[in-house]
């Protein structure tokens, strides 16, 4: 059965039972290719479909999902969601999207990507690994060399007559190199994303990863102390992503976000403006409408350091008496929540080289090695990182085996300068490099 037919059947079953229901359906196809020691190591081509229903009845809400699309399973799914809805009572009446007009966004799907022959993709991955291995004999292996592409089709439909679909696609390629010298092993990586296969450059990416890896050889541990640091753009993106749930109206309402009660206050440094932009052409989470079916909107969250508002869906906008920003999020298997689309730090004017010359010694943080040391409730963190020590604006030596610690809101309050070097996003956060002084570094005594 086609997914479209399954959506029809599920809606019919809901209507027959007198239920208000919203269907979320996702169909995805993907290819993944990996090379190892100059041989094709992994090839995967796959398709999957998932359909979920959210039944609402006044204040009641229940969710069920199914990957089996036969009529019996779909009816069972509707019955389970209805039974679940009887148990759950929210604070206000729930409403399904009633608009029939469906917003469009054309830049997020490239039909040309669907016709790239498999051989070309395999050749790409082969060249990626070979270039990395051949760059320098100190590179002893390429533990990760992957090409992946993915097409996702998402449909939202409800018993009030709303039905809309959009497709996104894109290809991501990732390569990590391992190099060795007398002082041990070091690893570094690079990644790129595009909706256009021909825009990917295997040689350039492999060389970049290999050069980053070689630059790390001879890495040593910094001494404990307070340092001026620069978060390189990808690391700045990861720190922004640690905070992304803070902007959710749901987290604010439930008092789990440290930003609750801070609307209108200065929460970041003056140089920081953060926007949620669902229309970014190369964005990983760009979309014409949210998961309730409401037309996407661009939302300024932080303007020159001041917290302007939160992200909401139809429920939290009413509960909090805040503007409805159309950030309802749910996958077929989850209930309705609130999530950002693409969180974007507005770029500044200063090039990275300028930030790295801001002090006699500046540590460029190039990698965040793990996220477990972040405590979301308070924003306190103690996180393992790697980096490069710049002296008088020039790279002096690589750094490893150390941590930085502090509080993430305090850190973003102390951002002194914002770089101009944002990259094509590989996650739903986009940021240029950021300069911050007096950051705690734990290394050797």
């Amino acid at each position, binding site marked *: 059965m086609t997914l479209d037919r399954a959506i029809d059947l599920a809606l019919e079953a809901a209507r027959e039972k007198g239920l208000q229901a919203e269907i979320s359906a996702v169909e995805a196809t993907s290819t993944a290719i990996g090379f190892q020691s100059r041989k094709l190591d*992994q090839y995967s081509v796959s398709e999957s479909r998932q359909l979920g229903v959210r039944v609402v009845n006044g204040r009641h809400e229940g969710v069920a999902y199914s990957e089996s699309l036969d009529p019996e399973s779909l009816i*069972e799914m509707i019955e389970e969601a209805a039974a679940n809805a009887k148990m*759950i*009572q929210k604070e206000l009446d729930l409403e399904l999207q009633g608009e029939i007009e469906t917003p469009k966004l054309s830049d997020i799907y490239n039909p040309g990507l669907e016709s790239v022959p498999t051989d070309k993709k395999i050749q790409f991955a082969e060249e990626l690994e070979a270039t990395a291995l051949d760059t320098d004999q100190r590179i002893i292996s390429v533990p990760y060399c992957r090409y992946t592409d993915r097409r996702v089709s998402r449909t939202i439909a409800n018993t009030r007559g709303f039905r809309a679909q959009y497709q996104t696609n894109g290809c991501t390629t990732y390569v990590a190199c391992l190099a060795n010298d007398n002082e041990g092993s070091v*690893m570094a990586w690079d990644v790129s994303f595009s909706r256009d296969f021909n825009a990917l450059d295997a040689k350039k990416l492999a060389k970049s990863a290999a050069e980053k890896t070689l630059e790390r050889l001879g890495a040593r541990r910094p001494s404990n102390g307070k340092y001026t640091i620069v978060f390189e753009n990808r690391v700045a993106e990861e720190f922004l992503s640690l905070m992304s749930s803070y902007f959710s109206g749901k987290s604010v309402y439930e008092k789990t976000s440290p930003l609750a009660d801070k609307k209108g206050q200065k929460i970041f440094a003056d140089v920081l403006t953060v926007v949620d932009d669902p229309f970014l052409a190369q964005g990983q989470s760009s979309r014409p409408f949210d998961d309730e079916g409401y037309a996407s909107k661009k939302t300024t969250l932080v303007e020159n350091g001041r917290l302007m508002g939160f992200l909401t869906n139809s429920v939290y906008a009413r509960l909090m008496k805040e503007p409805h920003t159309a950030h309802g999020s749910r996958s077929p298997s989850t209930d309705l929540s609130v999530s950002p689309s693409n969180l974007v730090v507005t770029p500044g004017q200063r090039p990275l080289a300028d930030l790295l010359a801001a002090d006699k010694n500046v540590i460029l943080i190039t990698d965040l090695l793990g996220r*477990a*040391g972040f405590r979301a409730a308070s924003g*306190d963190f*103690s996180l393992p990182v790697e980096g490069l020590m710049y002296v008088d604006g020039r790279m002096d030596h690589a750094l490893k085996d150390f941590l930085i610690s502090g509080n993430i809101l305090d850190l973003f309050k102390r951002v002194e300068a914002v770089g101009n070097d944002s990259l094509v996003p590989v996650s739903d956060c986009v940021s240029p490099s950021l300069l911050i002084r007096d950051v705690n570094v734990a290394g050797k005594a």
Partner: protein
Amino acid sequence: MLLQDDLLSKIIEQLIGAGADFAEVYVEDTRKRQFTYLNARPDRAVSGHTLGAGIRIFSGTEQIYTYTNDLSEKGLRRAAENAAAALKSRTKIPLVPPEQAQIFNPRPEGLTTRDSDFHWQQLALVDETARAVNSLVTQVQADMTETVKTVQIMNSEGINRSEVRNYLSAIAFAYAEDGGEKENGHKRTAFLGTSDDWDQVDFRDLGQGAAEQALRILRAEWAPAGEMPVLIDSAFGGVIFHEACGHGLETTSVAKNASVFCGKLDERIADECVTAIDDGTLLGDYGSLEIDDEGEPTQRTVLIEKGILKSYLVDKIGARKTGYKITGSGRRQDYRFAPTSRMRNTFIAPGESTFEEMLKDIDYGLYAKDLGGGSVMPGTGSYNFAVNEAFIVRNGKIEKQVKGASLIGTGIETLGRIKKVGKELKLAAGTCGSVSGMIPVTVGQPPILVSKLTVGGKV
């Protein structure tokens, strides 16, 4: 059994006929129920059905994987054609007929035999207990999840096996707030069982544990920064071995020459006090199985014996690449992932030292009482994990509580610095993420003394 043997046999024949030298079909049917209590009332009820098949073929050490949730003969044949189309070299191997189907752990009952009211009552108890601990507790979230996962695996070497796996998981989070400062604590239990086995869980203890931890962390000062001896407590403390060593012993890394433990079999990699085991046979523990996700019987694998490296964790493709014998360690999150070598219940075996002896050895250091999650780069051996609760130790005595400390080190260096191992082994359930997805595991150890680790506090 999910699909008829005949249908799976036909798909295997099609794949071997197309020139694969190994073929496998993995079918999965998972039913899940989740209950979430938040804001002191039922907040979320979700029921789910996951259904799909993964088809895998080998050509030498090349692995081709495809999955679908169209389980009709047509759907499976199309997936098989997609897989076979990627074969570069073609071989002719004899097909071993499937064995008589073996079904492990069949459970006649469905997902839950308990009425939903039971779940909400338990979750309300968690909420009430947590809030009653202190008026500073401002929010509580409690979840109960029941999962029944049925897997069926047939391959071209004759394996034809099914297993029903029942999982229970409950977790409580409590948030405490005082003077603008906010913190949270949590407590979790997870094990193999059906809904009848919820009786084993003390829900009051979950709520109380989460709330008390939130309050303790709220009142703690920042940890110091730098290198110092660390006494790591039992149970979830075992995450140190999981990250520092376990992942590096998986052939997923070893076969790529991307592990610091490559080529070290039968070499000393730790002090004599360290014996480490990965055991899928423990009764009821979260990482236990009858068969792995390649259909191989699970095993108890001694990884390190008195400091000597004895075995890696080996899956089918890892065995092909390295020549080591399979250890029943092929695992995957679901049919969307090809299996890779993974840990099950991994722990350091009991030693001879008492907690007090280990404490006395520390002039100035850290006692890490409860650990959080962690991660590792097997290629360099650099690992890290978070410490939820820790205390300063001075002159052999536990002093004030501190927070915000992550610990880092490198695998081989840290193993060499485990100087004492305590007597009382405890395990704790967790979820491990790696290339084949998120899987249930346990970690564990008795208390251990590590002579030097880098603590990431404030200067």
